[in-house]
């Protein structure tokens, strides 16, 4: 069965979505990410969607769900690489991906996440991680 790989890189999980996702695959990914976070104790999730030619409300909801579930498990999520045409369409569709942090490139997203990890190591907690 086809599957979207979830790669571990230090404290982060890297996901590059490179196929036209059907709904079951999107739900499977949601499951995989949450399990990996708890297995590895990951503190950040980076999702690269630069190959996605559309993001409809279902995929949008999956991204928002992953961000929300990760947050509950103590990990930050950044979605990177959204194509301009996809962004225009998403906004017109009425979705603004609330609660999902975004960055233009993988590098920028990585910086955001690693910055957050470094901050935590220094004892400067994120607001959403405070008890």
């Amino acid at each position: 069965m086809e599957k979207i790989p979830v790669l571990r890189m230090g404290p982060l999980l890297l996901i590059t979505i490179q196929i036209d996702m059907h709904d079951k695959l999107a739900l499977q990914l949601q499951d995989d990410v949450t399990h990996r976070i708890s297995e590895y104790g990951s503190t950040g999730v980076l999702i690269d969607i630069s190959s996605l030619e559309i993001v409809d409300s279902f995929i949008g909801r999956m991204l928002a769900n992953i961000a929300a579930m990760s947050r509950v498990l103590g990990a930050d999520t950044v979605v990177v690489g959204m194509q301009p045409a996809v962004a225009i369409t998403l906004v017109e569709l009425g979705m603004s991906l609330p609660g999902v942090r975004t960055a233009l490139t993988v590098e920028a997203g990585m910086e955001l996440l690693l910055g957050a990890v470094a901050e935590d190591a220094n004892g400067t907690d994120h607001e959403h991680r405070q008890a």
Partner: protein
Amino acid sequence: MELTMNIVKRETQPLKNSNDVVLARQKVRQWAIELRFSLVDQTKLVTAASELARNALDHGKGGSMTAEVITSGAKSGLRLVFEDQGPGIPNIDLALKDGYTSASGMGLGLGGSKRLVNEFDIQSEVGKGTKVTVIRWK
């Protein structure tokens, strides 16, 4: 006076499972490229098709999408007809409102896809099914 519409070509894609939704999206993308739609217009059309195909599957218990390349006078466009024999929509105005959902979506499917096309028509009869027709002109 309304110009007559000519149908240049037509193809029907069944919508029986979530993989068919992917096939429907690919068909719409391919035809939108052939019609030389801009990338943004292609994306809007494919996204609308994805929403409506999923609606037919999730709410209508499966159905079909018929894609047509049409011309009217000097302009050409893509018409997509989504049909299902599901339970129908009791209150269309309510279903078109953002945030209204009876299934797993975000409630943006109908209202959202209406914003992504030039023409939008929905007909539904409780107990008989739903037919949504959209057109995006080039």
